[in-house]
Every structure is written in C-alpha cells, then in structure tokens.
C-alpha cells in the first residue's frame, strides 16, 4: 500500500515506551522549536482552539439564525464569508465559504474527494468517516446509498447534489427547519442542529413531543 510503516521497529531501544508516531511527531516538534518556527504555548493554543472553541455549535448558530432571520438568510446565501464572520467565526486557512440551502427539491451533501477540506470555522475538525476513502468515494457514486447508511431516506423526486470541497471553497449545508418548531427560540433551535445535518448526511428533527 505504501512504503511508510511506522509500526515496525527501527533501531531504537526496544524498551522505549513511545510509539513510533509519538516519537516521530515529538522529533518534528523538537526540530521546529530549535529553528524557532513553533513554540509549545502556540501549539497548545491551537489545540485548545480546535478542541474547545471551534466546533459544530458555531455552524448551528449560523443555521438557527438563518432559520429565524430572513434578512440574515439572504445575506448568508449571497455572501457566506461575511455573514458567518459577522457572528465571529473567521477562518484562518483563507477558505471561501459557500452556504447551500436544502429544500424539498434539492438536498445538498458535502465531501472532499482530495483529502479532507472542511469548513473548520463553523464545524470544527471533521469526523473520522468524513476523512475516510470509503465515504469520499461512495458519496460521489451513490449519495442516496450513503444517506441510507446514515438512516436518512428522501423522496425519490428530491435531487441530491454532492459538492466537492477544495482548499479554496468550503461548503456549509443549511438543513431544512423541522416542522413543529415555530415556538422555539433561536438558541433552542441551534441546539437541534447536528453536525451531520450541516454536512448533508443527516436531517434536523424536532424534539420529541414537539407539536406537529
């Protein structure tokens, strides 16, 4: 498959308790630190940002606002970069954001067939399955099959459109607002919006017990 196998033993002492990957990544950090290119505090801050601050709750806030504020929704669909930045979610990889609205006529799904380009500022880091070659190839060939894998079935006449992310363009799916949620506040609605619904592999459901 490839010529890199980090699991086998090199000529390091057998009693080292570091895995090969652990030692190799520490080595990269040591070299970059010696050259003054990174420092531990900056690295910790990045990890903290992606583990705690950046996540699907950011995207859920965007979606809930679009559901409840027609003006914001129009802005988001026309200029997602500005509309998302207005809520404080700004990308650092120079990505251009595009919002895709699900309608009864069209359901949008997002993939990155190249690697794992993903709208970090609004969704955080991608789940394992998003990065897997299995998802990346299957969603292009058989999006309806992938939806079925996720337990989602859509009417036959709903078109499914698959969008391939790149380093330059990232997509955020605006899922359909579920029926029976008219009484809910923007904050409550944000709590319903799942990560998968913003990738297009899920739908948003009203809380059980909501009026139909």
């Amino acid at each position: 498959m490839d010529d890199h196998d980090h699991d086998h033993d090199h000529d390091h002492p057998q009693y080292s308790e570091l895995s090969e990957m652990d030692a190799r990544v520490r080595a990269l950090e040591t070299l970059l630190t010696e050259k003054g290119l990174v420092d531990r505090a900056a690295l910790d801050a990045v990890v903290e940002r992606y583990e705690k601050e950046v996540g699907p709750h950011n995207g859920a806030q965007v979606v809930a606002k679009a559901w409840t504020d027609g003006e914001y929704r129009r802005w988001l669909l026309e200029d997602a970069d500005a509309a998302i930045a207005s809520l404080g979610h700004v990308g650092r990889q120079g990505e251009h954001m595009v919002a895709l609205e699900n309608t009864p006529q069209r359901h949008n799904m997002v993939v990155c067939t190249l690697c794992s380009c993903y709208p970090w500022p609004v969704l955080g880091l991608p789940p394992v399955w998003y990065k897997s070659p299995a998802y990346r190839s299957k969603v292009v060939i058989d999006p309806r099959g992938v939806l079925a894998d996720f337990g989602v079935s859509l009417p036959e006449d709903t078109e499914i459109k698959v969008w391939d992310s790149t380093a330059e363009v990232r997509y955020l799916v605006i899922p359909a607002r579920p029926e029976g949620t008219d009484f809910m506040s923007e904050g409550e609605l944000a709590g319903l919006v799942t990560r998968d619904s913003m990738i297009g592999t899920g739908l948003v459901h009203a809380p059980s017990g909501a009026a139909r």
Partner: protein
Amino acid sequence: MDTTAAGTLARISAAAGNELPLPPSGSEQVFAAPWQAQVFAMTVTLHEAGAFTWVEWARTLGRHVSGGRPDGSDYYERWADALAEMLRDRGIATEEEVERATGAWHEAAARTPHGMPIEL
C-alpha cells in the same frame, strides 16, 4: 434507538462491513492521541506563519491520504508524512534530521522511569 454520533456510526459500520469508517472510539473526541493534536497544531502554526499556503498543504496531504486505509484510521499518520515532506521540500528539516531526533526521543524514553515525563 441510540441517536448519538457514535451510535449512528456503529450502525453504519455494521451495515456496510469493512468498507466503512470506524466509529470514533467512545465519545466524539477530535484527536485519538496527543501526537495527532501536536502534528495538527504544528501544521496550522506553520501555515499561519506563512511557511506554505493551504492549497499547497491540501495538495500534499491529498497525495498522502490517497494511499491510506479505506476507513481513514491512519489519517494522522499520513498527515505526519505529508508534513515531513513539506519540511523536506522547504529545506526546513531533512529526513535524516527527523530520523535522528526520533531516535533521540526513543533513547530519552528508554532512560526515563515509567510514569515520569520524558525529556530530551
């Protein structure tokens, strides 16, 4: 029905056999091991410092992950390979330097009593 992300993925994996992504182990953690977070953070930091563009990074990473396992479980191993290649190509660190520093960390680990922090 278990509607957590892990539960959903477990059902998908069961339905699709070996071809499908592994559920994240336990909860929805972003990184499976500290080294994954470190290699990720180094890449983001270097990009933000202007060492490479994100397009260049995506292209390099894409080449490395294209040979990865179907379930994506070796994603950050491939990521580390891609970063090492970037450092090589930009004259920041040679493969020999990386090998030597990796060996130094193993030696440090070997002489450190279990439970103590490992330091070079």
